[in-house]
């Protein structure tokens, strides 16, 4: 699997941010697919055979939010339930963070407090270590 790049699905509603994130991830040698709503994200998952990690914002376009999305893919019959999820959002109360953690996301970041390269480095590390273990 060394030839194929690892794929990160970025689900973010703001276009400017989406562009910046996409750019940075690509500069880190990984592939990116993007979605701006939970519905779009589900489509992406079904169309793409390979997704190694998910970058998820809480507030999304459309009626569903990040939690709805996580609930959708984390239930027992889902083939995507083992994809590591990193929630990167701006303001989510600790009660919602708890919900995310309970649902099984890997980590939660507050955008405004974190550097872009920091988050991406974290994600990259995580999925590459998983691959090594596999």
């Amino acid at each position, binding site marked *: 699997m060394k030839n194929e790049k690892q794929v990160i699905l970025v689900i973010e509603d*703001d276009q*400017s*941010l989406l562009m*910046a*994130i996409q*750019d*940075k991830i690509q*500069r880190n040698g990984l592939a990116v697919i993007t979605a701006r709503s939970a519905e779009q994200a589900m489509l992406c998952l079904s169309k793409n055979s390979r997704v190694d990690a998910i970058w998820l914002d809480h*507030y999304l376009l459309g009626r569903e939010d990040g939690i709805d999305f996580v609930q959708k893919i984390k239930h027992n019959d889902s083939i995507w339930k083992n994809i590591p999820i990193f929630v990167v959002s*701006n*303001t989510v*109360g*600790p*009660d919602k963070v708890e919900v995310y953690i309970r649902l099984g996301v890997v980590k939660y970041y507050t*955008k*405004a*407090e974190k*550097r*872009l*390269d920091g988050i991406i480095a974290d994600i990259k590390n995580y999925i590459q270590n998983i691959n090594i273990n596999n």
Partner: protein
Amino acid sequence: MQKNGIRKKMVISCFLITLIVIAAVSVFFIVNTGKLVSGEVLDRIISELLFITPFILAFVVLIIYLIASKIVAPIKKLREAAGFLAKGDLNREVSVKTQDEFEDMANSLNEMALNLRSDKIELQRYSQGLEKTVKEKMEDLENKVIDLKIARDKILSAANDIDEERQKTIKEKDKIDAILHSIGDGVFVVDKDLRVVIINEVAANMAGYKAEEVLGKKYTDKLKFIFEETGKVNSQFIDKAFETKAVQKMFNHTVLIDKDGNKIQVSDSAAPLLDADFNVVGCVVVFRNVTKERDVDKAKSEFVSLASHQLRTPLSVINWYSEMLLGGDVGKLNEDQKKYVEEVYKGNQRMVELVNSLLNVSRLELGTFIVEPEPIDIVALAKSAASELKPQIAGKKLSFKEYYGDSLPMFNADSKLLRMVFQNLLSNAVKYTPDNGEVSVNISIIDAGENLGDKKVEEKSFAISVSDTGYGITAGQQDKIFSKLFRADNARGKDTEGTGLGLYIVKAIVDLSGGSIWFKSEENKGTAFYITLPIGGMKKREGAKKLG
């Protein structure tokens, strides 16, 4: 009474007998001697006879008398005695000492008198006893009659009282009914079997029924309370009230389903009703429609949430694009370009901080935040906050001193809020102290009456002090230091960074925890902030969001 009957009879009898004897003898003599003697001698004999006759007569009378005495006297005595006896005089004793039948009779009479006397006495005693008994019994009866009268009176008065009480009760019930119906909240009372015994209009209306339809039935029939999230029946608050005999409150997450199936968000509380022996006999439930309240709360916290999201998104854009520019991702920057982009980046960072602080302030003001205290190690918290400043401390070559009391107990506090206090005070101290200065933090326990920063402490508390040898606060501006967005002139002069909200937030948090904050400062000498927090810790507070 024949007074001298016997004597008379005896005397007459003896006299007659004597006469007869004399006559007989005389006749005999005369007859016999008449033949022999002549007239003269005969006369002489007859005259001698006549001469003797009185003497004989007297002699006979005497003898008769003696005999009579011997017989008549005792008989007389006996007669006397019997007479007395007959009259009822039992105290006389007759003395006849003739040593014959008369004496016996006298003795018998005496004995009889004695017996009669003792019988009489006994009879008297008996009769007295009887009298006494009868008297007593009469008294008893009288007393009983009195008692019965008293009892009857008491019953009558008790009946009156009961009637009065009944009237009072009816009045009270009417009063209670009136109160219940004028209460704005829904109120209902269930008995041990969970049947509704009282329900007011508000409660019935909310549920969509008439009071009569609900009374007497189990409350679960018509008053359907469910958990908001799961839709499952919520009978917890009543069950727990019965179980624990304590008031149960459920602020959120209970929904009442009315007759038409509409969901009404309610906040309820259940209080057990206890009798004199502390047994639960029922439960009072009060609940109200909090849809509006919840909506307002929700709206408030959503506003803050939305505001923070909307405000922060563009800030994140600026943040990351500046980051990428500075990182050379889209080409290398020359020195000036780098400098300028750095300014953009720094300006943005300040904006981020300001937005954070404003959001916290807004939550504080709207009251939509949560205080969740748990036992925390205050020293560890302080150290962790301090460690975040290590780069700045090192950069300014500040001397950082820490004094922590020995074996300080755990403190019941919301760690996020307390952390903000330390972060703020420490970062201020570091920010507003020139190079080579000193910053120190001190945490200890202080007893009531002890002195802290020139103030006497009222109760046993945690004492925190953060001091520095920095720019200080001008005397003229000290009173405004805790106000929103206030920055002292010298601070603004030295350092353009700073929101002016930090101390406001710190004070709000300290006040919330039941503590106090004050400071001592002298311009260009330094500042020391003092905080006391009650040993008991922070109190839990319900709300919509956590601060920060």
